[in-house]
């Protein structure tokens, strides 16, 4: 009784300061605005979680049926409901790695030019043009791939490679124009802008005195860039490469249009192949059995996890470089 009395008695006299401040802010609308924006921001988190859950749920059929064998077998036969993912994983990795081998030297060189050599105005203009290149829709790269790169591959690049490097097993076999190498070349053009713009940003954060110290010791411009500036920014550059790899792995339209769409594992880069994204794009709308849909969704989940991990690592590396420099240890 007395306890109740004190509460009632004291309530108007001694409300906690936090509560009063809260009511006051509520009256101002600040807390309401805070909560509303918080809810909208949390939607992002929910969306990401929902995405993973839906993919996981909708591929339970094929997970239950094939288990880990899904990743070890290479038969893809919708008619007999046999699904193995190996050729698609192989095609995705081969084309992406090929794209990296071609785009990293090109992109890094261009980024060095833009951050170290070019005057600021020229550098900004070129960077803007390169950003435009990154904005070109992938289906347009696909159209150019079909009508420009494929014929070029069949008549010029392919024969030239066979003539000079034909002793390597990767450059042997028939060349129809479509295949791993063509897809790799188209992907190169598509991911190079990402490498350049992120690497340039990272290189520009390298402190000026690092360059000056190297030059003062008698290094040439190139030596100061290659032995001091690039190592300083290396984890950020690695981050940009990871971002590019993630983009190449998930690229759909351009690859679908030039890779040949034939699930096989071949040593020759001239051979046609298939990628995860391409098979999903081609078959999802026409999949008639639940198992087929489920297998395609499992492929999607695999692709999602690959890009998710790469993107996660890339962000951490870029953040680390921009905060304190990837100091050479």
């Amino acid at each position, binding site marked *: 009784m007395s306890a109740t009395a004190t509460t009632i008695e004291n309530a108007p006299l001694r409300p906690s300061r936090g509560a009063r401040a809260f009511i006051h802010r509520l009256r101002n609308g600040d807390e309401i605005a805070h909560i509303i*924006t918080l809810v909208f921001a949390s939607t992002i988190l929910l969306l990401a979680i929902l995405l993973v859950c839906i993919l996981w749920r909708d591929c339970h059929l094929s997970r239950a049926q094939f288990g880990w064998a899904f990743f070890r077998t290479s038969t893809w036969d919708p008619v007999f409901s046999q699904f193995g993912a190996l050729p698609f994983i192989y095609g995705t990795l081969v084309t992406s790695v090929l794209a990296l081998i071609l785009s990293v030297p090109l992109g890094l060189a261009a980024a060095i030019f833009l951050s170290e050599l070019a005057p600021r105005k020229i550098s900004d203009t070129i960077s803007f043009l390169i950003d*435009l290149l990154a904005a070109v829709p992938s289906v347009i790269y696909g159209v150019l791939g079909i009508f*420009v790169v494929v014929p070029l591959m069949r008549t010029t690049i392919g024969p030239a490679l066979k003539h000079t490097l034909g002793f390597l097993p990767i450059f042997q076999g028939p060349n129809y124009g479509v295949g791993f190498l063509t897809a790799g070349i188209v992907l190169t053009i598509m991911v190079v802008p990402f490498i350049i713009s992120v690497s340039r940003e990272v290189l520009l954060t390298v402190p000026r005195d690092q360059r000056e110290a190297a030059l003062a010791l008698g290094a040439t411009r190139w030596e100061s860039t290659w032995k001091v500036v690039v190592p300083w920014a290396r984890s950020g550059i690695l981050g940009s490469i990871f971002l590019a790899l993630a983009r190449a792995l998930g690229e759909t339209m351009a690859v679908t249009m030039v890779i040949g769409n034939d699930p096989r594992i071949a040593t020759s880069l001239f051979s046609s192949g298939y990628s995860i994204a391409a098979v999903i794009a081609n078959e999802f709308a026409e999949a008639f059995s639940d198992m087929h849909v489920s297998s395609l969704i499992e492929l999607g989940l695999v692709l*999602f996890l690959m890009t998710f991990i790469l993107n996660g690592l890339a962000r951490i590396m870029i953040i680390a470089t921009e905060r304190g420099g990837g100091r050479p240890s």
Partner: protein
Amino acid sequence: MSGLRLFWRKSLNVVMLTLTGVAAFAVVSVLFMILGYLVWKGGSSLNWNFFTKLPVPVGETGGGVANAILGSMKLLLLAAVMGLPIGLIAGVYLAEFGGKSYSFVIRYTTDLLNGVPSIIIGIFAAALFVLPVHHYSTFAGGAALAIMIIPITLRSTEEFLRSVPGSLREGAMALGASKWRTIATVVLPAAKGGIITGVLLALARVAGETAPLIFTVLGNQYWTTGWNQPTAALPLVIYNYAISPYDDYHRQAWAAGLVLLALVLLTNIGTRFALSRGASGGSN
């Protein structure tokens, strides 16, 4: 001996630095090659029919892609209605209200969501809106594009809100305005130009997306009414026509590609121009 070494180092310097310049100009020249090729191949097929007529069967002349242009507009409208509020308001949260750790989580998730391949977003939208009801719809495609728009708008909104000087906020608060009034009447108007730019760029980005549309809106040869049917879309038309074996369709694919590319590039160039003019105007 040391003279030879110096000569070698200096030559290496010149050669490597030249190569970096060559690389940069080679990459930039690709942009002009793409543009030139599309204008050359697609320009001649652009005419009044192209923008106003429905597709016709192979062999007949005078067909167009009017239904695809309308379809793309409807998809963008849906994406904007569903995606922009979330992106914009969440951006306000990150820039104005967010604490440290939860904001980091949201920002990180946003970046990851931005990096998810568009085909996966397509599967997600199909699993939510197509597989359960067993038919393709404009709505499902719009939802897929909306999911892609959210992370882009969110980050650009946050960035532009952060670039509003703190003194403006302090001034408003010193006059007794509450925080949300400060944001609504001072900060948001100050960042308006930048936010609109971000929205336009986000729309331009998803306007060219093809992969998430293939199995959500499917494509359509005719006009679509309402939001619950399969619809045509410009990127889908480009894809389907380009992989078809007919020259007539190839020509239309080039033309549609030119239209799409022009839209995307003009939006990018226009917003860039507007932004840089706004920035210099602000400093004067």
